């Protein structure tokens, strides 16, 4: 009896990208490459450089290739995504450069791109247009998840408490200097001091600052406008804790255990605390988010609050129409024991794999990725099979 050999599916892991979080994405991307089940899949690294070009090659597996100004392009092959709907192919001008090229079929894409162009629906739009299967949120959920104001608007409509906010658009800069006087007056009367000011559409802590006075507020707003066209101003909860829960989109979404990032400097988690090694010289060098200082499943967290956070996380995930793995970040006002939705990360650093290491779900990232890849193909197939034949009333051209 002859055995049918199923070929390994090629999984294109997209990482790097044009956002501020390029480096974080490289770290996460390399983790995912290593974590994919190599018995089942052929992981293909696809690095997007700072200017948006796509590259593939063996050297991309090694973190050392990314130091000193990025990988040596001479050893890589530049590729583009075929625009033919459903082809799901990478193309290269250099024939024979890699096995399978110039047309290399990719079965499923795994966008591991944090921030602008990667987490905000842009790459998802490209993959939709070309009919590719991909893991994670679709266009709308990505775009809304990236926009802090829109995600707050939506989750607050389904009963999840959010910290109040004021939005300020960059276009105020074109309307004279009156806002420099008016905004602090308004903010002071509504929130008092201090306030936290952050970009509306960035995933990292870049551009975030706390303001204690009118002059600090104005500078904080300008700092946001260096990065984004919209800023959010919120009261700064002085005695606060952060609480994060991941949700994975399976047939029914499942919440992970909770984590509490440890704030080192008494203020909000800053970029370096979030993503750099914390003096733990023995930590493997490709850990990124996974090695930040945190407490998993904190024991002193009231069980009720934990359950509420997990329930809110699933509700937010569902309401925004998310897929894949998202991490929902909450704030706890410790003076009032109140829990607030802060933001959702639809492509969290390290895919928040460390949050599945305790009961009830002992899933390794490898298992989770396998589940998500299978689901991605199903989602794509479902969309492709949607009725595309226009009904008679739309057939105008005979």
């Amino acid at each position, binding site marked *: 009896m002859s055995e049918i050999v199923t070929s390994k599916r090629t999984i294109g892991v997209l990482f790097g990208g044009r956002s501020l979080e390029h480096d974080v994405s490289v770290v996460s991307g390399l983790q995912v490459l290593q974590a994919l089940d190599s018995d089942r899949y052929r992981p293909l690294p696809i690095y997007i450089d700072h200017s948006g070009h796509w590259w593939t090659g063996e050297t991309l597996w090694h973190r050392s290739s990314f130091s000193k100004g990025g990988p040596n392009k001479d050893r890589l092959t530049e590729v583009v995504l075929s625009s033919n709907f459903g082809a799901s192919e990478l193309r290269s001008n250099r024939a024979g450069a890699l096995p399978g090229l110039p047309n290399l079929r990719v079965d499923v894409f795994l966008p591991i791109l944090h921030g602008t162009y990667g987490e905000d629906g842009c790459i998802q739009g490209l993959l939709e247009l070309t009919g590719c299967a991909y893991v994670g949120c679709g266009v709308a959920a990505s775009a809304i998840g990236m926009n802090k104001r829109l995600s707050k608007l939506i989750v607050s409509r389904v009963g999840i408490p959010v910290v109040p906010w004021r939005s300020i658009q960059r276009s105020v*800069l074109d309307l004279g200097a009156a806002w*420099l006087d008016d905004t602090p007056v308004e903010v002071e009367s509504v929130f008092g001091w201090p306030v936290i000011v952050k970009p509306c559409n960035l995933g990292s802590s870049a551009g975030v600052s706390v303001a204690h006075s009118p*002059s600090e507020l104005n*500078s904080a707003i*300008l*700092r946001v406008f260096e990065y984004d066209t919209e800023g959010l101003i919120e009261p700064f909860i002085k005695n606060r804790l952060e609480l994060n829960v991941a949700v994975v989109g399976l047939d029914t979404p499942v919440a992970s255990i909770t984590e509490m990032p440890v704030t080192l400097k008494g203020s909000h988690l800053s970029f370096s605390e979030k993503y750099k090694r914390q003096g733990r010289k023995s930590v493997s060098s490709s850990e990124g988010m996974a090695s930040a200082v945190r407490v998993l499943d904190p024991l002193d967290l009231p069980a009720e609050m934990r359950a509420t956070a997990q329930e809110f996380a699933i509700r937010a995930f569902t309401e925004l129409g998310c897929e894949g793995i998202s991490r929902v970040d909450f704030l706890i006002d410790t003076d009032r024991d109140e829990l607030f939705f802060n933001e959702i990360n639809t492509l969290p650093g390290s895919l928040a794999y460390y949050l599945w290491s305790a009961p009830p779900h002992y899933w390794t990232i490898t298992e989770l990725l396998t589940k998500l890849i299978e689901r991605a193909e199903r989602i794509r197939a479902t969309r492709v099979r949607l009725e595309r034949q226009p009904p008679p009333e739309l057939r105008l051209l005979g």
Partner: protein
Amino acid sequence: MPTSSLWLALIPLAAVQLYLVWRRLLAYLRFFQQEGYENLRFLKWTRARSLTDPAFLVAVASAFLGPKFPLSIAILSFLVFLALAVAQPDPRSTGKISLRLTDRAKRILITTFVVVVVVWGGLLSVNPTEPVRTGFVASSAVFLLLPVLLLVGNTLLMPYEQLVQRRFEQDAKRLISDVHPFIVGITGSYGKSSTKSMLAHFLRFKGPTLAASGSINTLMGVTRHIRENLVPGDQFMLVEMGAFRVGSIRRLCQLTPPSAGIITAVGEMHLERFGSTEEIVRAKSELAQALPPGSFLVANADSPGALRIARGATHAKVLLYGETSPETLDTRLKDVVFTSKGTTFRLETREAEYSCFVPLLGRPIILNLAGAFTLAVRMGMSPALVIAAMRTLRPVANRLEVVEEDGITWVRDAYNSNPIGFRAALEVAAALPVSRRILVTPGVVELGPEQREANRKLAAEAAAVCDFTVVVSDTNRSAFEAGHRDAGKPGTLVPVETRTEAFRWLRDRLRSGDSVILENDLPDLYEASEGIFLNARPRRPKALKAQV
């Protein structure tokens, strides 16, 4: 005639030498690139450096011994050349400024390589009856003349490079006339880059602004930057205009006709290149002359040179800024106070007086900020907005940046210093609340005949502020010794040969509460030739950190 087995040895010998030549060319090219492919400047750097190349010495020795023991010398030299080729650090990934293999660099490399082969072939054919000796003599000559051959390669390419450059300039000009941005030209002996980045920071809150992030200030650099980065919709473009000789700014102004200008400070920097302060003033005046009638020329009134240029400007409307100048100023800097977090100061304009804070340090930087403020406000920005924007400026690495690490306060001012910047760093260091201050510096260079005197004065001032001065390399050592004697503190001077040695000295003595001022950490050009031919990687400050 050599035996056939010798011939068999000579072919790989030639091959390995060509490989070594290739490696050496890369090494020299890195410095040629840093000197802006200017033949004379590179020649000045290279001097007799190739005499110290082990490859040259091996070739000379082989030329003497080769005829006596042809086969063994051939094999031995083959092995040595191979070892040298492998041992040479790759300039593409080593050194403080590594080689970028741009298209031009590749062209120069390949052309020079062809020149080398031709020269070698020519020398070999002089005396073909004695191939072993002739071969090694030819090799010696090639290794000795390699820097010169690089210049020959560059010169051969010159007509082509000029053609390419002209075409690129036309492209850039067309782009500028399409996009039509408001162009601000910025020149001066120092402070150009920082003024540019601060003004860009302000203007970006008014409209899309193109400004190069580094010090792009040559015709070629600016052309390339425009072609790669200017996009329709850009409202402002800031161009740093470097003067390498009289005429260079005029040509830049033809490429990017300025609608406003800033003259930061005109002084003795790069005196070596110009010969006299007079020439420098002439070179920098070209910006003022290029300004259209009614445009703004902002000038630093504290700098006599800049003030002279401003006075000579015929069509532009002059706006003056300064701190100490007796002139009536449009913006006067007052009450400057340094802390480890930044600087507080006041700006007095003709209309009002403003309290400001900026997370940057150093008197010249604050003065540049006053210049950028002056023009930004004249270009229609509200003073309150500009002052709010000042708080969002970020310190630039190694430009008078104060970093606290494990109890040590580092005052990092490594990048291209001049006496004014040097003093600024000393002033900031003196204001910081630390227990001991240790200065590490090779002194200042490129000051022509005044170099010794300038360093002597700086050394005396440093001795008054610092507990120790570690002077690196012998370039300015005797001036520093004299300066320390003048200050009556000869015992606080620590002369060392290299940066590595300086850090070793520090590592053994630093303790918590100390401050280290890293001043004018010279680019590779002026350091001893370590690391060019053989791997002598300097230890990084990181190693130091771990030990303190």
